[in-house]
């Protein structure tokens, strides 16, 4: 089965360090999403892309977070500088939108991020 691949699976680092999370969407999918999961806020959308173009990143703190898609096989989410409140599980999901069709999103296994 095709899967969304996220790396790393776990990341522990100190406050102030740069963190980069990577996502390989399912081949052929044209939408990519970044979600953050915390106990307090649940699952929140941070950013999403369609055909590699950013469509909405209003859920993302702009001063420290950035999301990019250098190519169709790679999406990145960076935090610089990281803060303890960024500790969460970060999910990448990909999906396929064709014309009027809206397909469900497929999720990666997430990156559990801990900022000390």
């Amino acid at each position, binding site marked *: 089965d095709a899967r969304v691949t996220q790396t790393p699976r776990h990341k522990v680092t100190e406050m102030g360090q740069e963190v980069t999370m990577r996502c390989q969407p399912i081949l052929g999918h044209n*939408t990519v*999403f970044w*979600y953050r999961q915390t106990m307090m806020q*649940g*699952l929140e*959308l941070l950013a*999403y*892309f*369609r*055909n590699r173009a950013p*469509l*909405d990143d209003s859920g993302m703190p702009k001063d420290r977070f950035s999301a990019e898609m250098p190519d169709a096989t790679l999406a990145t989410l960076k935090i610089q500088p990281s803060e303890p409140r960024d500790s969460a*599980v970060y*999910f990448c*999901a990909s*999906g396929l*939108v064709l*014309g*009027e069709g*809206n397909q*469900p*999103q*497929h*999720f990666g*296994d*997430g990156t*559990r991020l801990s900022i000390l």
Partner: protein
Amino acid sequence: AQTVTQSQPEMSVQEAETVTLSCTYDTSENNYYLFWYKQPPSRQMILVIRQEAYKQQNATENRFSVNFQKAAKSFSLKISDSQLGDTAMYFCAFMKHMSGNAGNMLTFGGGTRLMVKP
């Protein structure tokens, strides 16, 4: 903006019994999709079932079925013959129907933790 509410933070059920998880949502959209995702302790987000709002027939996937009440904006999940492997967090999610060059993000409920007891 859409909101999704799951009013049951935790539920439990005996193995082989039936359990229903509740979900309500608020939207002004007429055309949309609803999903149930399962998140076991392994942390994966697994799609359980989907429902298109324009379809009156309730979706069914093996032991999982939904009761979709569009007028009431209700979308409950019924799990029949519960199995130990069904123990997980269950999230209800809403997605607008988007066309053209727009995207289609999910809005999630807060989740229901289901424990299946032997």
